[in-house]
């Protein structure tokens, strides 16, 4: 029997236009159809592609800026289309919300039909058992009722659900776990996505830099970057302070890093120790529900700048570690000292190289090593005077040179431990040490338990839904000379080849059960189909089953 597409509802004869309610119902049916689900899955896959074609703001804002500079014409259009934040864009959200809605719409009727299936009894077979792929006839030397009873025990032992039908037909079915697993899979996937959205909405992520030996309070102002969820209020940041006791990095012989380790202590508001842990790349620390990860590091050369103040007395506006931005490719670290309190204002570009190798270059000139390890650090300082524009937003690592003139045409090169005079008797710069700072990522994601639970259930549901098959077996026995003629039929809705094998074994078992029942052994098979050679098993020598190959 071919299953036709379900009958489409036509407008009532006599009414010229379809009813609105009817239209809506039809649209709803279409919405929760498999076809819609399929189209939406494709739409989701296709929409995701865009997210990998263009640089994404949440991942790397710098590359987006670069892209906009490189493509002045297309860039802004793409930006308006949300191409630089595809996964946060309205149209991407629309696709997945539609998919989620379709999923929920699907789950309702599917759950209802599973419940109906579990409540109802296994259905009757079609009248002609011989039509089924799996079919066997046995002759039993017992009355029909006893024969059916023997088969019932075998099927019950194999955990089939059973139902007796009029005329003595026994219907058996198993494999409900398939649909239950599939439902669990879909519900769990929904749960996972809900957890994802919840964590994103109520969590946050940000980065804090802490220099060795120093502390940073977990406050909004101390974050270099801060990405709160839509529903994350600033008052929700727990109050604690992180102290970086020590930072260590180790390297492989070829210079690639092997380990970063930040020894951190978390202190509460009154300075009491909450936690103390060495945080390495795969081992974060948890403080007050916030996870602290080691994500990057940089150098903070200890720099002392002494200049003449406005009253002529020497002042040291900079005396301590200076945060610099480390370029991970060249291993050059750049920072800036800004002295807006002087007149004219003074700015220093400070560059630290990890290694100055004397006499290594051509003609015995010194060369700079771009080694991630501190070999022989050297500071190169270039001074500027003029207007720093300190009231404008700018990076702490660089100077805004638009209002500045160079102090001299050659930079100062200061070896580790050395001190040099600034041009024009302005003052001195001393390079007294190097510290490291750690870039810590702090994140709170309250959705994680939900996502993890959902993911686990996705797997739990997936396996039975792919491997359990639903199958039915029918048995009927009718009086025959010498006892009964027992007919069995089997139908697998999936996994037909494996079921053919199972059916064969089942028939053999029924035959053995008939043989053990009072009244003597079972008799000979009656299947007349001569086409495929009967498959014989040792224990089933006296019947023939007929199994035709079929697709799954």
């Amino acid at each position: 029997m071919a299953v036709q597409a379900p009958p489409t509802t036509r407008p009532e004869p006599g009414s010229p236009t379809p009813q609105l309610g009817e239209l809506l119902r039809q649209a709803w049916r279409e919405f929760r159809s498999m076809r819609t689900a399929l189209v939406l899955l494709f739409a989701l896959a296709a929409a995701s592609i865009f997210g990998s074609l263009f640089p994404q703001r949440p991942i790397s804002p710098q590359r987006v800026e670069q892209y906009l500079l490189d493509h002045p014409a297309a860039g802004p259009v793409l930006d308006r289309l949300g191409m630089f934040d595809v996964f946060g864009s309205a149209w991407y959200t629309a696709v997945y919300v539609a998919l989620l809605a379709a999923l929920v719409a699907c789950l309702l009727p599917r759950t209802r039909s599973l419940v109906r299936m579990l409540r109802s009894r296994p259905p009757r077979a079609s009248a002609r058992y011989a039509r089924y792929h799996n079919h066997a006839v046995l002759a039993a030397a017992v009355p029909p009722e006893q024969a059916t009873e023997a088969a019932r025990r075998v099927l019950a032992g194999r955990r089939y659900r059973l139902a007796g039908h009029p005329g003595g037909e026994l219907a058996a079915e198993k494999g409900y776990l398939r649909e239950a697993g599939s439902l669990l899979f879909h519900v769990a996937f929904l749960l996972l996505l809900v957890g994802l959205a919840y964590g994103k909405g109520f969590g946050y992520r940000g980065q804090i830099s802490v220099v060795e030996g120093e502390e940073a309070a977990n406050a909004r102002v101390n974050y270099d970057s801060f990405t709160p969820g839509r529903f994350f209020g600033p008052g929700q940041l727990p109050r604690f302070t992180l102290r970086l006791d020590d930072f260590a990095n180790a390297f492989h012989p070829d210079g690639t890093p092997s380990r970063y380790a930040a020894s951190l202590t978390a202190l509460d508001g009154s300075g009491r120790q909450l936690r103390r842990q060495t945080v390495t790349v795969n081992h974060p620390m948890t403080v007050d529900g916030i996870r602290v990860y080691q994500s990057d590091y940089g150098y903070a050369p200890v720099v002392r700048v002494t200049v003449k103040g406005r009253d002529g007395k020497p002042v040291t506006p900079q005396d301590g570690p200076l945060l610099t931005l480390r370029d991970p490719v060249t291993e050059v670290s750049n920072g800036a000292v800004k002295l807006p309190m002087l007149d004219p204002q003074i700015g220093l570009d400070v560059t630290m190289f990890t290694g100055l190798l004397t006499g290594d270059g051509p003609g015995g000139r010194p060369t700079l090593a771009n080694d991630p390890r501190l070999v022989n650090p050297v500071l190169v300082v270039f001074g500027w005077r003029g207007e720093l524009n300190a009231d404008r937003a700018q990076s702490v690592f660089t100077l805004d040179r638009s209002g500045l003139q160079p102090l001299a045409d050659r930079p100062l090169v200061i070896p580790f431990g050395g001190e040099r005079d600034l041009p024009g008797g302005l003052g001195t710069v001393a390079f007294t040490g190097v510290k490291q700072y750690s870039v810590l990522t702090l994140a709170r994601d309250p959705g994680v338990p939900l996502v993890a639970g959902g993911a686990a259930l996705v797997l739990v549901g997936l396996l039975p839904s792919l491997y359990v098959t639903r199958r039915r077996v029918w048995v009927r026995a009718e009086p025959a000379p010498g006892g009964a003629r027992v007919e069995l039929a089997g139908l697998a809705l999936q996994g037909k080849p494996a079921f053919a094998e199972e059916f064969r074994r089942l028939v053999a078992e029924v035959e053995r059960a008939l043989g053990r029942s009072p009244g003597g052994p079972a008799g000979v098979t009656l299947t007349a189909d001569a086409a495929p050679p009967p498959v014989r098993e040792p224990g089933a020598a006296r019947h023939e089953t007929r199994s035709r190959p079929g697709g799954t």
Partner: protein
Amino acid sequence: MSSATLADLSDTLVWLAVLSYVVAAPLLGLELAYRSRWAGRAGVAVAIAGLAANLGAALTRGLAAGRVPWGNMYEYSMMVAAVVVTGWLVWVARRREVRPLGLFVLLLAALAIAAAALTLRVPAGPLVPALNSGWIKVHVVAAIIGTATLSLSSVFSALYLVAERNERRAAPRPPLVAGGARTADRAEVDEAIAGYAVEELEATEAAEAPATGRRLKDLLPPAARLDDLAFRTTAFGFPIWTFAIMAGAIWAQSAWGRYWGWDPKETWSFITWVVYAAYLHARATAGWRGRSAAWVSVLGLVAFVVNFYVVNTWVVGLHSYAK
């Protein structure tokens, strides 16, 4: 042996593996075309030698770098090829009739290694700290097995498309209305599939009549069998791929503090996953079962290829360990 010697040895073994696979494939082609048993046996012998070279290449590379041999995409491809070939050999041991399909399996493996050796090769080196975690091993092993089985299933789907077209031409039959559901009612889906199989029976048997030509397309196994193979490999690979993505997310959570960040690599793994999920759906959807579903599966292979070669060479993300 010094690590440089080991790395050199690995480079030699890798090409030896490619060579063996390329030699074994046509031998299995001979079996497919002329039912030549000796060619099939020789093909398997050469393929086993190739697998040994393949595993040797991975082992020496791992020893050279002093770590597991799946730290970058080049090594990953090598492992995928080894898993594909191992899977096929295990299968051959259980069912002789899949032996000639080795033609396609071995070409896939040879192509995977050669393409990676030419485009993704990097010198053997240590892992960056982020990759130093127990979960990476779980993640990568699952990803290797998932990639291998799912791409194999797409190859079966592609072969199905050829065989099905062939059979349709040989024995034209009226189009089927059945074969899938229009609603989410699982019972209806099941009945529809069951009905389809009953309907299909006569037609398939007709199509299984001995093929006449000697052209490749005439020598393929029956379409229904290929369809079944494709589904069963997907059913095996899909949960593993699902698990691989999850293990990757756990690792990302411990390394970067976020389990999912839509970096290009993650995005394409997700796209691949969605496409194979769509394939599983398509098999149960009216008007999609059969050819269209098989095309969806082929699309999955395309997604894998993009994930490997395009994303790794053109697009960079946090996963740029791949480079």
